[in-house]
């Protein structure tokens, strides 16, 4: 009798393990940070891309209803792909686009802007990538939608596409 109970519990235990592991096979093994882990934008100092002057982030987030903070780089191919979407968004008057140039060469970044256009009203430099980490970002491109109270409304990891543009338009309506 005891042996039977032992065998049944062993079988149940292994079946449980099998089901858990088998279900896990279909899960993605790439972790993406929670998109709204932090609720408000961290405040920090960064250098202006053109003038190299240090600016507090607070000084930029003052006169618009909504802000889009876009982390980009000239060496990032998906950034080229999403650039027309940003140009399109920059036409919206209730929005202000702010760029964060991530671990880039200034000369290449300027060429990028000259070639594809400048959708940003301000661009900050992040030469060593530390500001992106303060923002909770983990690569390029990444886009953060912020309201006037510096509350993070949405984060897009990866290039913006038609679907994300629709979502942004819904948020800022």
């Amino acid at each position, binding site marked *: 009798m005891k042996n039977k109970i032992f065998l049944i519990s062993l079988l149940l235990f292994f079946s449980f393990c099998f089901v858990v592991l088998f279900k896990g096979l279909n899960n993605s*093994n*790439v*972790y993406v*940070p*929670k998109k709204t*882990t*932090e609720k408000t934008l961290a405040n920090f100092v960064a250098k202006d891309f053109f003038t190299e002057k240090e600016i507090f982030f607070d000084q930029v987030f003052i006169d618009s209803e909504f802000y889009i903070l876009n982390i980009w780089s000239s060496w990032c191919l998906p950034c080229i792909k999403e650039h027309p979407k940003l140009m399109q968004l920059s036409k919206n008057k209730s929005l202000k686009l702010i760029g964060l140039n991530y*671990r880039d060469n200034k000369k290449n970044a300027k060429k990028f802007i000259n070639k594809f256009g400048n959708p940003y009203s301000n661009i900050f430099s992040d030469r*060593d*990538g*530390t500001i*992106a*980490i*303060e*923002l*909770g970002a*983990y*690569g390029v491109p990444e886009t953060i939608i912020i309201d006037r109270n510096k509350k993070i409304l949405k984060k897009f990891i990866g290039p913006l596409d038609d679907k994300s543009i629709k979502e942004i338009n819904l948020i800022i309506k």
Partner: protein
Amino acid sequence: MKLLRIFLFIIIVFNTNQAFSDENNDKLINKISKNIRCLICQGQSIYDSQSDFAISMKLVIAKKLNQGFSENEIYEFLKNKYGQWIMYDPEFNKKTFILWILPILLFLLGGAIVYRKLNVQK
């Protein structure tokens, strides 16, 4: 001459102190880096990884230590930015308690089985 000796003594003491604190800081940066997961090459700590993300993360850790952050404060800061998953050592909470308790339970269960078997044989 005496003044010069005192001056030299102060310089040597100050420099060794500085070197000692730099070495301690490096050790702490390495210790923290080994416990932080690289989100680009997942499965590696930022200590092992050479990705841009890992390099920047190590700079942020060094900066925070210089600002006077403690080891735990740095972990809290990063967890706040990226979530619990960024840590290699999961903290003890209601979501992870099974992870921590299960090995102890299995060890006790195994021990009890061995103990009983030995007792039966006697």
